[in-house]
């Protein structure tokens, strides 16, 4: 072997060298390509991950589009509380109108924010607009003026308020008429300009889809502005006005105040006793036997409660209780507890409950009628009580009661009919002239249309049955 190798010529070594070189080159190519393939596979794995993520993102697009469409509607709804451009133009007019209505005098108005609003470059779709006012007005006039803006259909906020008592600096001077104080007031609002930021994304069939989305889940604007209803309290002292009196004046006023307090206390006692009666009546209501008496009781109670509610409203509107203490007492002890009872009664829908109960009874009666349990029907009608005599105001209940009365009457008629002895001993049926057919009852012959002694009318005769009418009730008597 060694010799053979030794004998290999130089040329052969060259061949071996070339072959080795070729093999090494191939290995090199494989090694390099292997490296590249590894890199490619890494890229492929990364791309596959990206594509999978992209697919999952794309799959969510319809749902995101739905959210966006809904979001557009929600914001549009929400933005309704804010004034639009037209409202802003009208707001100065409103300021004037409200000042006239409330009695305040506007001495100065700075609406530069409103006037310059078109010049701003900001992309923020919300712009704060402030009106600075200097006014003169009595306390109630000012409160009324502010309240009109706080209850305005669009969002307006009373920002800073500064009231300076007009006669405060001159303590001791007598002031005639209602004192008009100096007031500095800021009114603030925001304008919504949706076009200021980016254009909305184009969504295919946006209009139709928006309608579908809203139909599926209606947009409810839960963004309700809080309101306060200010009521002018004519008998309330303006604390910004000097309350002191001349040493020689005032004895009569105290007596008047005392009489007023006495009247208020008396009224409070009356209201408390009326409320106690209402509470007692509510407790007793469920214990009343018979539907109709219960309905009547409920009607009277509802009427009484409505009258009481009106009285409370009247006292509240007229500021009957002048001091805050009695007013608080009135609200916490009378008005609020009563309102709870009244609302509970309304939400319970007493009428609906009674109607349902009566409807159930009527259904039971119909079933009993089909099963021939006439005594049960009459007994049930008696339990309901006075269906005929009572003047029920609710037309639906009256209708049900009338149906109950009808079923009960029919049942009564059948009971009475069954108590009348009727011995049918034969009949002659004439198919060509059914009116000439004859039935023998208590040994007497009767044809259709003839009346028995007890007021029973023979209606028709056929081979299987005789039909009678008794007290408007149609009663079949089977033959054979």
């Amino acid at each position, binding site marked *: 072997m060694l010799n053979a*190798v030794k004998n290999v010529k130089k040329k052969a070594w060259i061949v071996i060298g070339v072959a080795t070189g070729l093999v090494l080159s191939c290995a090199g190519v494989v090694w390099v390509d292997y490296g*590249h393939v590894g890199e490619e596979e890494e890229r492929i794995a990364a791309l596959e991950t990206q594509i999978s993520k992209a697919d999952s993102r*794309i799959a969510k697009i319809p749902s995101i589009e739905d959210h966006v469409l809904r979001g557009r509607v929600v914001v549009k709804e929400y933005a309704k509380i804010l004034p639009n451009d037209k409202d802003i133009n009208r707001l100065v007019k409103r300021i004037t109108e409200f000042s006239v209505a409330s009695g305040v005098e506007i001495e100065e108005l700075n609406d530069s924010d409103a006037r310059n609003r078109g010049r701003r470059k900001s992309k923020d779709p919300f712009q704060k607009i402030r009106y600075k006012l200097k006014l003169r007005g009595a306390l109630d006039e000012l409160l009324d003026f502010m309240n009109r803006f706080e209850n305005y259909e669009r969002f307006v906020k*009373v920002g800073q308020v500064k009231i300076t008592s007009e006669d405060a600096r001159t303590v001791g001077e007598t002031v005639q008429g209602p004192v008009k104080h100096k007031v500095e007031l800021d009114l603030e609002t925001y304008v919504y300009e949706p076009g200021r*930021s980016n254009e909305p994304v184009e969504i295919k069939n946006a209009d139709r889809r928006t309608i579908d989305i809203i139909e599926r889940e209606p947009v409810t604007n839960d963004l309700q502005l809080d309101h306060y209803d200010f009521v002018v309290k004519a008998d309330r002292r303006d*604390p910004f006005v000097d309350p002191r*009196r001349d040493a020689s004046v005032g004895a009569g006023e105290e007596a008047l105040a005392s009489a007023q307090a006495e009247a208020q206390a008396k009224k409070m006692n009356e209201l408390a006793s009326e409320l106690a009666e209402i509470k007692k009546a509510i407790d007793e209501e469920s214990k009343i036997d018979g539907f109709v008496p219960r309905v009547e009781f409920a009607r009277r109670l509802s009427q009484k409660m409505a009258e009481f509610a009106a009285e409370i409203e009247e006292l509240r509107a007229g500021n009957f209780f002048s001091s*805050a203490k009695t007013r608080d007492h009135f609200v916490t002890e009378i008005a609020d507890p009563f309102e709870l009872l009244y609302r509970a009664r309304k939400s319970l829908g007493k009428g609906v409950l009674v109607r349902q109960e009566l409807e159930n009874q009527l259904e039971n009666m119909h079933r009993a009628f089909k099963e021939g349990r006439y005594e049960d029907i009459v007994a049930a009608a008696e339990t309901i009580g006075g269906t005929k005599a009572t003047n029920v105001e609710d037309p639906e209940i009256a209708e049900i009661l009338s149906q109950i009365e009808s079923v009960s009457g029919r049942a009564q008629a059948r009971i009475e009919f069954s108590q009348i002895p009727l011995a049918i001993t034969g009949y002659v049926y004439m198919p060509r002239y059914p009116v000439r057919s004859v039935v023998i009852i208590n040994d007497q012959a009767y044809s259709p249309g003839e009346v028995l002694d007890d007021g029973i009318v023979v209606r028709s005769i056929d081979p299987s049955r005789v039909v009678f009418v008794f007290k408007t009730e149609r009663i079949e008597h089977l033959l054979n």
Partner: protein
Amino acid sequence: MITINLLPQDYRKKERTPIVLFLPIIAGVATVLSAAAVAVYVHFVWFADTQNKREMLEQTLAQKQPMLKHEKRLLAEEAEFKKRADTIENIAKSRILMTRILDEFVDVVVDGDTLGEEGYLIRLKSFATAPPNSRGRRRGARGKNAAKSGGEVKFDGWALADKDPLAAFNRYHERLQESRTFHENYVAITDPEGRIENFSDGKLPAKGWTIKQTLTLRDPAGALTERRERRQQMAEKDSGR
């Protein structure tokens, strides 16, 4: 015996390559060919396939780009609309009904007129509201948990009484702090301070205790939520009956 081949070289019988040489040659050729085959396969099949696959995936991803861009814009718009809705909600909640604040405050102030010996007679000189500071925290409140404020109400005036105006002031001060409006609308009141002032204008009462106070309003959103919760509780209680 020695045999000598006298035939010229061309006529002599060819000698076979020795097996020891032939086998390595064959092995070498096979190795070279195999290596070449592997190299060709790796380069022109495996590597090319992988490249093709990658290019295809890149193309697929590129095709999805418009949709992804659309999704990105949608998400941005969704976030924008949520932000706008929140902004409008915050605007709505940020409103303090100044009519309520002033009206209820005046109620407490004049309430003392009808309370007889327990009463007080207050005269106001000025009343002003100030907005909350930039962070919406009340003055002196520190830390994340510090209660938010809706601003301040500042007022000054006199508690008027012929005898002991300080006592009249104290009665008013207590009543204010016990009042419903205080619990509903304010979080703090400054400590009382003042002095007796005598009036010489022939009117009664001739003395007054000066009042200078600051009330810190509650965060309107918190107060509103509380009011709504209370209404909800009342409604639930109501429906439970």
